[in-house]
């Protein structure tokens, strides 16, 4: 019974839920909540990107473009046109999905470096448009975004709320909300992975030719997962914009695409929990290293480099392997 539970895909989800809801015990001030909320939002984005990178084996260097598009669509629609947040998020996601589908179809026929270059170009184009259309986006100096409203109920980092008789400040409320969003994102991703679509995707990753031989429509599966990961990015971009209250074109910039990919690779490609760990580590490092001042960037690079040299599979898979090896050894010793 316990064993079966440990094998099931619910295991990770339950662990994650326990960690997420136990975490507030260790958060001592609003800044910690602030950071944890951002981590959850970015982690959900990376979970979506991992579907594309980790499972379908396709590389996107333009994902920040979709994130930024979602962020700016929400920001502009709620800020300048008086939309409510939820429709803005959903319409934005649909639009980004359509854009991803249109560019994805021809792009995903490309392989290897060509594919990464094409996604890179898409990301750049989006970033340039956001940067230059000052009348709409505020240009390089950015634009303010109203706080999130969920059918008339406003969720602002500066508000105060009561939940089941507990007094929460805005940051705590946002954290709980973001934690729920992350859980839903992980739940959806894991269901997708364990569905026929997920198996088809993994076959594409393993060998595209073999997949095609057994009758998998590789092109359509690849563009489907590209669209899904773009929608993840768009939704999270929108939430991020509402949470931050101010966005600049940096959210759509190439640098951020690289950060997202790095989170996937560092945490462990193809491991949903791994990429969440990757997001947490990469979000946390700049804050931890802030005390090193000028050496911050050097330390950052060094940590990434050493991790990739000694843990090429990524943080979590390497740790898991080490743990299970030890457990087996122990079990062997006892028998």
């Amino acid at each position, binding site marked *: 019974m316990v064993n079966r539970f440990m094998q099931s895909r619910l295991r990770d989800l339950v662990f994650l839920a326990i960690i997420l809801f136990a975490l507030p015990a260790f958060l001592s001030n609003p800044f910690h909540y602030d950071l944890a909320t951002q981590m959850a939002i970015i982690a959900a984005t990376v979970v979506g990107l991992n579907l594309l990178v980790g499972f379908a084996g396709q590389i996107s260097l333009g994902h920040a473009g979709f994130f930024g598009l979602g962020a700016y669509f929400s920001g502009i629609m709620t800020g300048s046109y008086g939309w409510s947040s939820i429709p803005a998020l959903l319409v934005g996601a649909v639009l980004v999905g359509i854009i991803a589908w249109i560019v994805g179809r021809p792009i995903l026929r490309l392989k290897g470096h060509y594919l990464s270059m094409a996604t890179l170009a898409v990301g750049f184009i989006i970033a340039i448009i956001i940067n230059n259309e000052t009348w709409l986006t505020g*240009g390089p*100096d950015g634009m303010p975004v109203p706080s999130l409203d969920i059918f008339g109920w406003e969720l602002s980092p500066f508000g105060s709320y009561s939940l089941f008789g507990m007094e929460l400040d805005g940051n705590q409320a946002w954290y709980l909300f973001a934690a729920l969003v992350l859980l839903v994102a992980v739940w959806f991703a894991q269901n997708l992975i364990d569905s026929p679509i997920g198996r088809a995707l993994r076959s594409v990753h393993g060998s595209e030719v073999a997949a095609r031989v057994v009758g998998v429509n590789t092109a359509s599966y690849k563009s489907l997962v590209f669209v899904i990961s773009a929608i993840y990015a768009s939704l999270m971009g929108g939430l991020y914009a509402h949470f*931050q209250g*101010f966005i*600049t074109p940096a959210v759509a910039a190439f640098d951020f695409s690289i950060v997202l990919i790095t989170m996937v690779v560092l945490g462990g490609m193809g491991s949903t929990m791994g990429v969440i760990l990757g997001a947490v580590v990469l979000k946390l490092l700049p804050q931890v290293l802030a005390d090193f001042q000028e050496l911050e*960037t050097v330390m950052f690079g060094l940590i990434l480099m050493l991790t990739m040299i000694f843990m090429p599979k990524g943080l979590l898979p390497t740790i898991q392997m080490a743990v299970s090896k030890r457990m087996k050894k122990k079990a062997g010793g006892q028998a």
Partner: protein
Amino acid sequence: MLKTMLRRAGKFAAIAAAGLVMSAQAAEPIKIGSFLSVTGPASFLGDPELKTLEMYVEKINESGGVLGRPLELIHYDDVGNASSARNFASRLIRSDRVDIIVGGSTTGATMAAVPLVEQAKIPFISLAGAVVITTPVKEWVFKTPQSDRMAAERILSDMKERGITKIGLISGTDGFGASGRTQTLEVAKELGVEILADVTYSGSDTDMTAQLTNIRNTQGVEGVLNFGFGQGPAIVTRNYAQLGIKLPFYQSHGVASDGFLDLAGASAEGLRLPASPLLVPDSLPEDDPQKEVVQSYKAEYEARWNAKVSTFGAYAYDGLMLAVKAIEAAGSTEPEAVRKALENIQGHVGVTGEFNMSPEDHNGLKADSFRILEVQNGAWKLIN
């Protein structure tokens, strides 16, 4: 016997404890928070700003601090990224619990932090340029550099004095150039200057001859203004000379540094720009109230860091001095009192200009705090 000893010990303990409490109170530092773009693409702003803050916090502490309390500088590097700037502002306010923030090298970084600052009700002195920071006035946000709008006013009125009323505008598409372009277009309308050509270039362009040819071929242009930042304006200046355009040429305050002269070389000859008096400390007339402040800042900075002083560092100098003055006037670090004191600062002579704050003006500078300089024989010459 035992009793007296105990009593004495008790007395000692009490005195010691009181002493500890008192020294703790006396040593309670005033926390000055700062987030600056010390590395990354905007490091030419953040680096001199941080050096200035570090140096003057030390100096102030050596001479006894403020209100008898030492200053403590808590600073983070936002790498020129607005999201990190916002996160570090959040950390300064919520985790480090600073008394005042002096920072924000770029407009993006500043604006990203504004919602947090306004909500937390902490005085914030920004070191970034664009006019949006203090217009409309935000209760808790102040800034030390002149706005790009003032630069546009200063340039266009100098042009008008020379009889130039029809100009060509070439600007960068980065934040500085884009905001400068908008302000120039607005100010031009007010001053009755016609902009006949309006072209842009992007930050990574390496040749602007096409845009300049476009301006040259526009009938009736009497002068050209380049609003930009970084190396773009240096390239524009070189191309301008290569094309042999003889019209009066203006740059913005964005390139008012000695580094620009090195980049542009002989092509810069004859161009004019609005700049801080810091570039020409010794040519200032003796009766200029800023002369002393400017000269001593330049001397102290260059002696300490063995590097050329920069206008951007001066923004940080003015920001810190305004903060100190306000805290002294308020007599405490109580945020509302400090904010009020900042608003009431009158006739404060800084390196950038003379600050006259008011509830309607959180910048406090006038357009004439910019001096018009001309490049003559490869050096800055004070015109006005």
